């Protein structure tokens, strides 16, 4: 005896249900600026970017007394926090290389014209079926360091522009996140 096509369709339906439920699922990395503050991931890639840029500075401060000044454009609402953080970073860098930090003969002007992040979302769906979802954070940093001697002459100029990258990938919006540092791909 053959089964009626309508009944056969009904028998298949429960098998399809979990698949359909899976398709309309959703997973979102949610960052709500600025009320909840700069997210942990963004802070992490900004800090990494700064430390990488610092490695590019070719100045040898050993045995010198260096006065460090930092000027930044970035930072949320005010650049004060960013400037203080970078100054502390440079202070430790200089002292570790045998310098004394404070008013003195040498002057180090550190400019941070760019230090910020961008977030890109990618959604690949077919007929409202989400197949791939990714969120990519990219830190852009540009550091300019000008060193002047006791007579105010420029002893050197260094520029660095290393950024950071991090992508979260979800498949079908439920499997994941697979953290992928984009630079390591």
């Amino acid at each position: 005896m053959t089964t009626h096509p309508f009944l056969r369709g009904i028998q298949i339906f429960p098998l399809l249900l979990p698949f359909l439920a899976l398709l309309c699922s959703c997973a979102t990395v949610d960052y709500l600026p600025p009320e909840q503050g700069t997210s942990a991931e963004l802070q992490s890639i900004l800090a990494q970017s700064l430390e990488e840029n610092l490695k590019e500075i070719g100045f040898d401060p050993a045995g010198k007394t260096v006065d460090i000044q930092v000027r930044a454009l970035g930072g949320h609402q005010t650049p004060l926090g960013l400037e203080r953080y970078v100054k502390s970073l440079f202070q430790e860098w200089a002292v570790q290389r045998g310098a004394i930090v404070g008013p003195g003969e040498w002057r180090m002007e550190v400019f941070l014209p760019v230090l910020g992040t961008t977030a890109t979302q990618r959604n690949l769906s077919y007929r409202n079926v989400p197949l791939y979802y990714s969120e990519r954070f990219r830190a852009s940093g540009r550091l300019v360091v000008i060193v002047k001697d006791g007579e105010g002459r420029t002893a050197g100029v260094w520029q660095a522009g290393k950024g950071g990258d991090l992508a979260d990938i979800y498949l079908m919006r439920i499997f994941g996140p697979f953290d992928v540092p984009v630079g390591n791909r």
Partner: protein
Amino acid sequence: MEKRKKASQTFRGMSILLMILLLATSCATKRYWGPSMGRSADSQSTPADALQKALKSASFEAYKGKSLWIDVYTLTDRTGKESAEERFLRSWMAEKAVSQGSRMARSKAEADILLDVKARVFGVHQTRRDFIPLVYMESTQGVVDLHLAFYERESGKILRTEDLKGEARYLEYYILYMIGPFKSVD
């Protein structure tokens, strides 16, 4: 007769399924609305827990009886000179140092040791997962990554550097959008 009975059973099954589907379209979503509500409780508790974990291994025993001055630097948001995270972190570190026998100096000039704390990370990130209609999850992860540098104030030399890391996760999930929340902390 047999056919009619089967059709009636199918109709009943379909009705139950329809009801489940109707239930499945309901939604339980925890939403945070700022800034009138301030920072959410999850966003406060997870970094605080992460900080406790990070500071578990921190030791100030080497500076017993000495006076300390603590400066904290973070990449967090602020409206003035010092952010909320910096104020909190400075006070917390001071308590930890005092409990291990150090003293807090009244000014930077009076301190024996200067402690610079750079917080590479002090914050949270949140992930929501929606597996309609079965599970809805919201995860808040607090992350703390500190770099400590101890300076001798007199000479300006670095005595010691230390990295401290801690993470805390808070997970809340709902089943069928109706049952829950089930909470887990780690």
